[in-house]
């Protein structure tokens, strides 16, 4: 007997089911063919969540059923439409109607099914406790969220690929240009991904079953609204038949806004599910600042490029209002942050003179946050307005001092409301650890509602319940005052009630602002702590090991 045959004889004899399991291991870890092995090697660079969820989706009934239903509906619509088009199909332009049908069919999986699946996927991770075991691995919250979003993108790609031949058919049936088809698909895909990003983030914010159910219902409502909005937009685009060049710019800006806010939302969600001792504030403030600056530049650019002389002031006022909304929402949430900076976060505080001078406002805490929001809004809005006022020629611009004053009024409101919310949080939420951000947002909403109700009641009472008239004491009512002082109402500024309202607003915001600045001093003097040497060594060891592994894996793949 040869040594080879004796070796064969000494191998354990496996039962058929054991052979099956052994084969499953071989197939998964090694791959059967060279092509498998290449794919497995390639998958080392792919997000593990994407790999896992793709495997799950391929076995899930939800995905198979959706794909099957989509195929059936698309085939049915294609056949019905083509039969209806005969005999004009040979000479008339019939592509438009067919594409409208396909767009409507695609809206359902893109804007309803995929985002809901993303929501459920994230929510069930948190609900079933699998997120905890996942968070103990080397995957960061960013990896997890991006992985979930990539799964949504992959599903979208598969659904789109089902319709690819049908969409090619619409082009062959005449009546449509390639840019119409491209814009339809880009808009649909970007909206689907944006809604999925919102769904994943919302699921990450939900801390218990009640919140999950609540968010799920709100999300579904939002999805239905988005489906109608996107559907009507697509209907308009496809029916119009051609795309003006400006539309691409609008689409570009829309995509930019969608991408930036999705990024911000995912970052916030990542911080919400991340380690509690981590600096969770600065990673959100950086994109907030970038988005604010970019929005100021974009809105300014479009106002100046596309606005005529008479509309310039109104366009810039809208831009400034948009910036105000951006910073006000961020600010009122930020006011709930705790003043204590964890040791881990203190290790990454700026230590150089320039760093402390310019980056301290990015430090966690409501105090630095107050100054960060106020300075960011004032910096971007005043720069936008003053640049347009001084740099644009009189033939191009109708900007008046009222617009500059309007920005000052907005800044005063920001200082007043954020400052008040911060003081309330400092007094009443001192011992509260969880849910502070939601609480501060709620306090702001309550303050706004109270100010509106109180001023309206006061105005009615002082006019013997006959009419509503603006007076100086109505200044806490942000909406009413801003409406009265809107730059286009130039003559209102000189009225005594408006003048005194502005004076009262200035005084109250200055008082609240000064108190808050004084209270911020203790947050600003917090110094950086040196990272222990062993921790630094350990991190560099991990980094070098990872680089080495990447290099080896790259060589192996080649």
């Amino acid at each position, binding site marked *: 007997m040869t040594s080879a045959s004796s070796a064969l004889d000494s191998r354990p004899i496996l039962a058929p089911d054991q052979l099956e399991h*052994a084969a499953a291991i071989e197939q998964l870890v090694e791959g059967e063919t060279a092509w498998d092995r290449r794919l497995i090697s390639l998958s080392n660079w792919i997000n593990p969540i994407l790999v896992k969820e793709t495997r*799950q989706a391929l076995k899930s009934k939800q995905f198979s059923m959706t794909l099957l239903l989509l195929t059936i509906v698309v085939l049915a619509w294609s056949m019905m439409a083509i039969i209806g088009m005969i005999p004009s199909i040979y000479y008339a332009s019939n592509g438009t109607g067919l594409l409208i049908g396909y767009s409507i069919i695609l809206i359902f999986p893109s804007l309803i099914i995929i985002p809901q699946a993303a929501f459920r996927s994230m929510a069930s991770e948190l609900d079933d406790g699998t997120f905890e075991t996942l968070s*103990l691995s080397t995957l960061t919250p960013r990896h997890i969220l991006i992985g979930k979003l990539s799964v949504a993108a992959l599903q979208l790609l598969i659904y789109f690929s089902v319709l690819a031949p049908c969409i090619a058919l619409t082009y062959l049936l005449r009546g449509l240009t390639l840019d119409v088809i491209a814009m339809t698909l880009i808009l649909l895909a970007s909206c689907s991904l944006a809604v999925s990003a919102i769904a994943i983030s919302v699921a990450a914010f939900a801390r218990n079953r009640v919140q999950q159910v609540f968010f799920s219902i709100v999300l579904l409502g939002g999805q239905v609204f988005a489906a109608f909005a996107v559907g009507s937009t697509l209907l308009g685009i496809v029916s119009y038949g051609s795309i003006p060049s400006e539309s691409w710019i609008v689409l570009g800006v829309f995509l930019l806004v969608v991408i930036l806010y999705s990024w911000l939302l995912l970052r916030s969600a990542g911080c919400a599910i991340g380690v509690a001792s981590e600096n969770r504030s600065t990673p959100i403030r950086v994109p907030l600042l970038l988005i604010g600056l970019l929005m100021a530049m974009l809105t300014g650019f479009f106002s100046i490029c596309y606005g005529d002389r008479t509309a310039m002031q109104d366009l810039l006022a809208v831009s400034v209002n948009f910036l105000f909304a951006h910073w006000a929402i961020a600010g009122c949430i930020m006011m709930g942050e705790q003043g204590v900076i964890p040791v881990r976060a203190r290790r990454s505080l700026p230590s150089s003179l320039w760093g402390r001078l310019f980056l301290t406002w990015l430090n966690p805490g409501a105090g630095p946050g107050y100054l960060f929001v106020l300075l960011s809004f004032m910096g971007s809005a005043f720069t936008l307005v003053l640049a347009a006022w001084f740099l644009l020629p009189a033939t191009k611009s109708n900007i008046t001092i009222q617009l500059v004053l309007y920005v000052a009024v907005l800044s005063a409101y920001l200082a007043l409301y954020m400052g008040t919310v911060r003081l309330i949080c400092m007094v009443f939420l001192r011992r509260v650890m969880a849910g502070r951000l939601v609480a501060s947002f709620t306090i702001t909403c309550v303050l706004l509602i109270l100010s509106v109700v109180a001023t309206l009641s006061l105005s009615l009472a002082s006019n013997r319940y006959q009419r509503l008239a603006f007076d100086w004491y109505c200044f806490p009512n942000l909406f009413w005052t801003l409406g009265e002082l809107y730059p286009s109402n130039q003559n209102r500024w000189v009225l005594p009630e408006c003048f005194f309202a502005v004076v009262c607003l200035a005084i109250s915001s200055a008082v609240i602002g000064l108190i808050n600045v004084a209270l911020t001093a203790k947050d600003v003097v917090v110094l950086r702590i040196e990272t222990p040497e*062993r*921790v630094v060594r*350990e991190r560099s060891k991990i980094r070098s090991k990872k680089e080495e592994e990447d290099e080896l894996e790259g060589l192996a793949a080649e």
Partner: protein
Amino acid sequence: MVDRFVHESNSPMIEMLRVHRFFGKTRAVNDISFEVYRGQVFGFIGPNGAGKTTSMRILSTLELPSYGDAVVDGFSVINDPDLVRRRLGFMPDGFSMYPNMNCVEYLDFFARAYGLIGKDRIAALRRTLSFTGLDKIASKPITGLSKGMRQRLCLGRAMIHSPAVLILDEPANGLDPRARIELRQMIQQLAVDGTTILVSSHILTELAEMCDQVGIVERGRLLATGSVADIQRTMQGALRVQLTAMDRGEQLQEWLSQRQGVSHIQRSGNTMSFELQGGNLEQADLLKGIVNADFSIMEFAAHRETLEDVFMKITTGAVQ
């Protein structure tokens, strides 16, 4: 083999430093401190709601302590949770699973999640499947697994990246005797390989067999800590002796009552039990005395209290 990222020193692998955790007015963990050294198995014993799971979750960086700190291999769970997690494998008491996956896919996913790529991942998968015995059911869907197999899979997931520290929360809960013995053997093997293990369980006899040290907790407080023998010695001052004489039971009782160190004598016919102060030497001395006094002894057995007895003695059964 995956780098265990462990520093070479004699400092403890796990340190709980005055850890407190409050949930509202409830003190789930109330000033717990202990140390576990490399390769040791530390058993965490306590009634339901004693604070075992919360302590383990703090060590696993899933909860932050309200006060105090926990250190794993020199890294704080508060300040460096990412470095702690690299050294740690955690098996929670509840099994969280993904639908539409089989065993090997599940482990493969966690191997990827721990950053294992290429040959390292393949090696880790093979090692884990073979160690846990899951290689025989690798392609079976997770949803169809028995409780014992799920526990094995859970253990496999916790050890896929060869962690230096394993935290196992009630790993034997709900397992049949065979699965329990197999799990105990796996834990002992891991400890022999140098893994530091913190394990909680209600089955005290099992913990007594496999743990180098135990800690008894109740209402968030650590009531006793040390090796099982140490705790028994500390908690029990005397040996319990059972003695059966051939005859003259009454005289023997009288003789015993005059001996120093003997107390609490209870007699039933010629059989009696009593407490004896001291250790083996005193025991031998007493036996020699009885024989020299011409008593015929049929049975002489001395025993210390079991871990179960000690546990019942220390804890009051109170819950928060």
